[in-house]
């Protein structure tokens, strides 16, 4: 049984890998490939949010600001100092992470509601600075002329080639998060989320872990921003407005808070759905979107990940009523063995 399940899983991963590698040749349209690239970038930012919201239960309504900090760091280093993609890749996430610590330090001692409101203020301040500090950020004109990534003879200048680079970053980001989640640090995050007092009594410094989680979250945002800057080759302030922070939160909520796969699926869905809804006028789509969010919160609070889990459990229970317990809970023992988190 176990062996069979294991080989099935390998088969699944192999199929997924083939589809992912072949995707650019399957999707011929450059436009849709560009949308896929964007979905990958958003997924990374949403994965960051998942650390703060999913693992420590705090709300960050400034992920777009960290995304912007990463993008502007990359844009400025590249256009002013001529740093190549790989150098800005090492600079942008720590930069965003440092801002995260700066914001987190005064606010993370307080209840999550204060953090939520403080992050909004931070997001607005960053956006207004990006918009108005013309000498440094180019103001409303933004910064054009950011170089495409180059690796030896390869230049990642088309949507299709950038796809592979973005996908590699996303896979690394997702695996890193899986590693974090199942590490001592990840358990500390969960402990802080479940019961802060109990965590503190077991020697977990809740404040320290909240700051770490927040820094990681903003670093993910910074990575997404760096990729975005080198892909679009142009950054300007209005991209990084609070609307995007809220959209990132919705992506995570729809995918399923706490789930890595959910974060990626949620981000991809909400990148594509507005494109599919293009035939509707802007406000119509946004009004429907607003209603959909309320419905989601009421009927699917755990997002698609939660929905999938409960469907799988129900099917498993029907197929094998006696093994309900085992099939229904893919818990501790197997996570380590197969490397698969929920």
């Amino acid at each position, binding site marked *: 049984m176990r062996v069979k399940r294991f080989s099935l899983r390998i088969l699944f991963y192999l199929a997924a890998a083939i589809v992912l590698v072949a995707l650019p040749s399957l999707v011929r349209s450059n436009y849709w490939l560009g949308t896929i690239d964007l979905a990958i970038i958003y997924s990374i930012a949403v994965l960051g949010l998942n650390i703060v919201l999913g693992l420590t*239960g705090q709300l960050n309504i400034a992920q777009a600001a960290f995304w912007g900090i990463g993008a502007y760091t990359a844009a400025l280093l590249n256009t002013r100092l001529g740093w190549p993609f790989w150098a800005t890749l090492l600079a942008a996430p720590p930069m965003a992470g440092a801002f995260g610590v700066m914001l987190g330090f005064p606010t993370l001692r307080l209840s999550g509601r204060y953090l939520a*409101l403080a992050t909004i203020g931070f997001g607005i301040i960053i956006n207004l600075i990006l918009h108005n500090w013309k000498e440094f950020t180019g103001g409303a004109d933004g910064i054009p002329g950011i170089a495409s990534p180059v690796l030896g003879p390869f230049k990642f200048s088309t949507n299709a080639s950038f796809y592979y680079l973005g996908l590699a970053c996303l896979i690394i980001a997702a695996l890193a998060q899986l590693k974090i989640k199942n590490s001592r640090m990840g358990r500390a995050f969960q402990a802080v989320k479940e019961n802060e007092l109990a965590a503190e009594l077991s020697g977990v410094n809740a404040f320290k872990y909240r700051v770490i989680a927040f820094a990681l979250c903003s670093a993910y945002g910074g990575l997404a921003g760096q990729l975005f800057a080198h892909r679009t080759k142009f950054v300007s302030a209005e991209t990084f407005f609070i609307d995007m922070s809220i959209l990132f939160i919705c992506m995570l909520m729809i995918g399923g*808070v706490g789930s890595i796969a959910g974060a990626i699926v949620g981000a991809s869905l909400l990148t594509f759905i507005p494109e599919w809804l293009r035939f509707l006028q802007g406000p119509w789509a946004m009004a429907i979107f607003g209603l959909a969010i309320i419905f989601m919160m009421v009927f699917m609070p755990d997002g698609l990940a939660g929905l999938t889990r409960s469907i799988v459990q129900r099917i498993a229970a029907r197929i094998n009523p006696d093994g309900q317990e085992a099939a229904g809970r893919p818990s501790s023992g197997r996570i380590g063995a197969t490397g698969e988190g929920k």
Partner: protein
Amino acid sequence: MFDVTTFAQLFVTGLAMGSIYALVALSFALLYKAVGILNFAVGEFVMVPGFISVVLLTTLKVPFLWAYLVTLGLMVFFGAVFQRTVYHPLRGRPFVTVLVSTIGASLFLRNTSLLTFGADPRVSPGLFTAKTVSFFGVFVPPQYLLIIATLIVLVVFQYLLFEKTLLGKKMQATAQDRDMARLLGIPVDTIILITFIYASLLGGISGILLAPVFYVTADMGFMIALKAFASSIAGGLGSIPGAIVGGLFIGVVELFCAAYISATYKDVFAFVILIAVLLLRPQGFFGEKIAEKA
């Protein structure tokens, strides 16, 4: 450069804007205190009645008194529907879930208003024909004085409501300990519904007062909500006097900073105050102890 008349004019204007922030922050704080939610649609609580009053006054040419009464009547309905759809099905869930639900409501209201009323900014006619009146030698628009006076009246009203009436006591009891209140026979669900309606009415009054002096647009709620958040953090999250003082403080400081430091960064100052308060006195001017509210 500095002269007393300008200073006084700025001060009154700041107080008027601050009174609006205070009313909106009050609406925000009431819901936070009563049910522990952060209402991100609080700006739409101002935008919707703003539009309703503009349409009644300009398109339908309804007399002022009736226009205002109908607007407030519709806001009673609005508050009740909001409570039933956005909050009630989610009561008892984590605060993030309810927060996201109010974000959904905000998006919905903003865009349906855009579809219904169009993208052109609207201005409602004011009650007053005079452009400015002399107030101790300072010329100020009478609407500003009306706004400030309304805030004073509402503060007194609310004090009497909470401290002197049974309904007010029940609202306080429900906010403090819902389970205990229920055990004492207080109809908690009804009280929460009344609190939502009251919060909605506060937004309605702000919207009506703001419409003659501020462009009414579908997006106006956004900045107002953000200023209300800053006000309630500055005053102390969930504190009623804090919301009022915080709102007035943000209104005045913002206007002076815009006039004497930088008009470009006008909107930044509210958030700089927000972050500064969090650094120096996180519980705000009137804050209680800070702990995760259950």
